[in-house]
């Protein structure tokens, strides 16, 4: 029942915070979010799952309660964790706390509603990762959209309405498509299943129980369902060309929401791809591996090129997420332990690092009120700690060894290069070029914003241009003259701004040095998938 307790804690917290007075909301939410965080850490530490959740074997924290019977299908409350979902649940709780702390400074109105929605979002995300019944899963899947919609639409930037509606409509249409795709399979399975239990469906599909529906042969049905599911999840990931909602949503969303959006919401898409497409229909995935790999490689390179063209720090990180998620897809296609395990590890790693980078951008934005690369320079002098975190996060994003960012990508490359789909070495080698482009745009952005002589231009009320380059440089070689008028506008970040950055960075480094902390359980959950999927 511990998993129900976890979801329940988030939900109760959401209600409590929602009705609390605004002035206490931030601290209450932060304090409350420590409860699910502590619980998930406890669950992580005592995790004893052995196998893949959909393919039988021992799960952790599993509950199966018969709920209602709907026609020929029983609906069960079936939740449980394996080595793939456990790290993602922990990631959700960590990032929720980080996002709440990151919201203290920028969120200044309707706080209780904001934090209430964030906790509700946490409950939905944990639910998506924990659910093992399609109905339960779909309810949580859709429930994620609701708080996200309001968080962007109410607390967002100038074009928040457009961004929120685009996000909502786009992902909802995707949900419809995947829903149809899934039910095509359900009907194809006919009497071989009597519930929407995901493990039962996965095992039935893998043992070839699919029969023709309405004159459509099972093989065709499989491929059609695969395409529908893939398209539905691809929007969430997002895979190019379904990605255009993402930069709009990120740019308009308040930064703490971006932390969750990039950190966890995108992983919901890749997680679903892994669970549905790659676990339930492995033969289709293997048959069309090269085409899927093409989508992955295009996402990596095209996403990175788009990031290179941006001037807004948030857009840079947003597009780079498209690029990074491409690696996840590439790893999944490989069907090797490093490929699929690496893809899962990359989900965790990218969640932490993109969260870290978005939070850094947020801290800078809080004081400069601009995110444009061209509007600021020399921030390192004024915000030394934030700068250090930004630099560390950016290098982790570039795949610096001894950070999780390196291992996530490296595992994927290792797993994919020798994979047995046609052209695997070529796809891998081309995708790997992403590590050069990512270094290009992040180094460029850092050089422009963090280094050089200090100066900020912003239209934020009360400031205007702020420059201060008067500090002594090296041995008087060249010191910039500067005005001191608004020097006090830019100030170092507060401790509660830095805390989430430090926590995320610590996790990134710990996972980079001791990846077994999560890779061990991921490997256990991934192995059955590879062994059983061998046929192709």
């Amino acid at each position, binding site marked *: 029942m511990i998993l129900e307790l976890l979801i329940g804690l988030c939900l109760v917290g959401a209600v409590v915070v929602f009705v609390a007075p605004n002035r206490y909301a931030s601290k209450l939410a932060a304090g409350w979010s420590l409860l699910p965080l502590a619980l998930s850490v406890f669950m992580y530490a005592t995790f004893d799952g052995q196998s893949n959740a959909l393919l039988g074997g021992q799960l952790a924290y599993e509950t199966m309660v018969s709920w209602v019977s*709907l*026609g020929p299908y029983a609906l069960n409350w079936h939740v449980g964790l394996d080595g793939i979902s456990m790290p993602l649940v922990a990631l959700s709780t960590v990032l929720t706390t980080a996002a709440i702390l990151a919201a203290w400074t920028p969120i200044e109105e309707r706080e209780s509603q904001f934090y209430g929605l964030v906790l509700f979002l946490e409950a939905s995300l944990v639910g998506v990762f924990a659910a093992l019944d399609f109905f339960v899963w779909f309810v949580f899947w*859709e429930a994620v959209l609701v708080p996200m919609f*309001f968080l962007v639409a109410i607390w967002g930037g100038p074009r928040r*309405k457009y961004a929120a*509606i*685009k996000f909502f409509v*786009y992902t909802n249409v995707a949900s419809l498509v995947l829903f149809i795709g899934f039910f095509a399979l359900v*009907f194809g399975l006919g009497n071989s299943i009597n519930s929407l239990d995901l493990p039962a469906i996965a095992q039935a599909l893998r043992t070839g129980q699919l029969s023709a529906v309405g004159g459509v042969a099972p093989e065709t049905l499989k491929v059609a369902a695969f395409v529908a599911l893939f398209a539905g999840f691809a929007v969430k990931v997002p895979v*190019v*060309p379904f990605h*255009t*909602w993402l930069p709009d949503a990120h740019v308009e969303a308040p930064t703490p929401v971006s932390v969750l959006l990039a950190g966890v919401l995108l992983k919901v898409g890749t997680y679903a791809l892994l669970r549905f497409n790659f676990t339930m229909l492995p033969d289709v995935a293997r048959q069309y591996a090269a085409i899927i790999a093409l989508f992955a490689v295009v996402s990596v390179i*095209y996403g990175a*090129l*788009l990031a*290179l*063209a941006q001037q807004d720090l948030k857009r840079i990180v947003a597009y780079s997420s498209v690029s990074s998620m491409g690696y996840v897809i590439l790893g999944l296609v490989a069907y*090797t*332990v*490093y490929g699929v395990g690496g893809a899962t590890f990359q989900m965790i790693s990218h969640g932490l690092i993109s969260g870290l980078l978005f939070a850094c951008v947020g801290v800078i934005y809080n004081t400069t009120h601009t995110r444009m690369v061209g509007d600021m320079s*020399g921030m*390192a*002098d004024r915000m030394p700690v934030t700068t250090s975190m930004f630099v560390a996060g950016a*290098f982790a994003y*570039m795949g*610096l*060894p001894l950070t999780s960012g*390196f*291992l996530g990508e*490296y595992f994927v490359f*290792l797993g994919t*290069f*020798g994979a047995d789909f046609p052209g695997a*070495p070529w796809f*891998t*080698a081309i995708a*790997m*070029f992403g*590590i050069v*482009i990512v*270094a*290009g745009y992040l*180094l*460029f952005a850092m*050089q422009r914003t*963090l*280094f*050089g*002589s200090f100066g900020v231009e912003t239209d934020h009320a009360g400031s205007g241009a702020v420059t201060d*380059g008067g500090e*002594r*440089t*090296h*041995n008087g*070689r060249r010191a*910039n003259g500067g005005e001191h008028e608004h020097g006090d506008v830019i100030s170092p970040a507060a401790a509660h701004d830095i805390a989430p950055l430090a926590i995320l960075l610590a996790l990134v480094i710990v996972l980079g040095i*001791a*990846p*077994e902390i999560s890779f061990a359980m991921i490997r256990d959950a991934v192995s059955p998938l590879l062994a059983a999927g061998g046929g192709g």
Partner: protein
Amino acid sequence: MAETATSTVAFAFEVAPAIAILPLASFVIALFAGKYLPKRGALAGITATGGSLLLSLWVMLTVAGGAYYNEEIYTLVSTPDSFDLHFGLLLDPLSALMLVIVSLVAFLVHLFSLGYMNDEGEPGLPRYYAGLGLFTFSMLSFVLSDNLFMSFVFFELVGLCSWLLIGHWYREDAPPSAAKKAFLVTRFGDYFFLVGVVAIFATFGTATFAGAESFPTLAEEALAGSGGAGGELPTFGLSAQGWFTVLGLLVLGGVLGKSAQFPLHTWLPDAMEGPTPVSALIHAATMVAAGVYLVARMYGFYALSPTALAIVAFVGGFTALFAASMAVVKRDVKQVLAYSTISQYGYMMLGLGAGGYVAAVFHLMTHAFFKALLFLGAGAVIIAMHHRQDMWEMGGLKNKLPVTYYTFLAGSLALAGIVPFAGFWSKDEVLYEALVHGLNDPLLLAAYLMGLTAVFFTGFYTFRMVLLTFHGEPRTHTARNPHSLGWSVKTPLVVLGILATVIGLANMTPIAEATGLEIEFLHTWLEHGLEGVNSEHYGEVLETVAGYSAAELSPLLAAVFSLSLALAGAGLAYRLYSGDRPEHHTDRLGAAKRLLTDNYYQDEYQVWIAQTLGTGVARASDRFDQGVVDGVVNGVSSVSLFSGDRVRRVQTGIVSNYATLLTLGLVALLVGVGLAGGWFL
């Protein structure tokens, strides 16, 4: 590993990880406590690198006693059905030698920094010492690596440290830009390296350097067709030999980047924006050596592919000449040294490619000492000149800075290759190896000739530098009244000055050949070692697999060639620049000078690729994305918006309305699907 399998592992090997961990500790201390410490972290760094040096010497002594070590010490990831990723130590003559070089130079540079950074009242000292500590840790770990994965890890980390330290003075515009360029250019090379590492894993299932299950051994077995595990390797559609050549060339990408070889050399001159002790440590003696060291470390693999070797040699010979020609016209003393560094690493590559493994390692060692000396000497001059670096503003410093002058002169004689200074012996041996193998291979011969021509240029630019800096009349007020130097500056100069003078005696091949004495100590040193990773084995492989054969030729003859060219270059410099008021003779080169000062427009085309082409494609992608990809999305939605204009009233902004609609929609969907699926029948 019969040699290591003695029942008691030497105690020196058990504490060997501390060689790397001590500087890591100094990094942590400087980073978190540096601002509270009296010297802002310098003392922690000096203590740590001093400790590393002592431990390295101890390891060297143990290795000299015939004990080696090749063990995993930390497993990052283990997978039952696939390969493991681990960190381990490989302690043999090569790595022991390199450990001593790196820790010694790091120790001296830390000491020198007291004078160069602390005494000059620099801000940001904790950051500086943290960077140095992290660098030393990474570099030593790189040297200790027993497998290519670990090498890559620390290869990248030294790149990070290089970025941090080049950009140390981040308030100015040039250093951050130079740091970015250095990281990007080397990253471009590392991309190929990473593909190579991944491909080596995919091919061999391992990336260890030494032992029966190491990838060079497996590759050798595969080529020999002797069955075993190496019998049926995946070679991705190529012949085994062809695929191994591809793998070697992929790894070479990283080598070209880090060791600043053509065409990826362009970052190194810019990297001189960093503090001069950093230039000495990272951009001359150690990090730049990482590429060459890597080739030496996996030489058993390169020796299998004559094509890869020939490319290594040719690139090396070309770079040696190309860079030396640019050094001739530079005004900034650090720029001369930067191009000279590129050129000297070219020699090492030439040596490796020509089959002169020992010669290349020898030159790596002597160069580390004399180039660190020259950079630190230049640093001393820069302190004295109140941070001016233009040689035309100097002159006449000889009498004001005698210690600096004589040590710098020793380093210059070594660089120019004048007998009996260190560089003579090592460069001469590289050229000798290239010549004897080149007589049977035209490509190698071409590489040799380029390397030989570069000797003349080296002699010229070296003495032009010495004469302009120290001789003649002082040309500026600062040069007449230089800043005085402290003991922390002079001590490293003296130590390195002695080394630059005598270290060449470790391997006097021409003398040995002429007299028959057994004084080729480095040859003897590198001949022993673990099975499959020693110069004796490499020699056999070169002959049997790569088909290298050496012509009979006296080393004395080759030595006479190169020494006379070096003297000619030095003599020309002396003729042109020795007066009290030397002229700008390079002006007479006319358009050629322009070409040389602009570095053959190498920077221009690379910047063009990175900026115009790179951002051009990026902008075009962005327009395509906004216009076409997102255009389609918006187009679809405006069609539906047009038809559903009235539905817009749904957007009331009232939370409960949305929630109601959402729930209703979900229910309708379920009911619809349920009806279609016949749930309610």
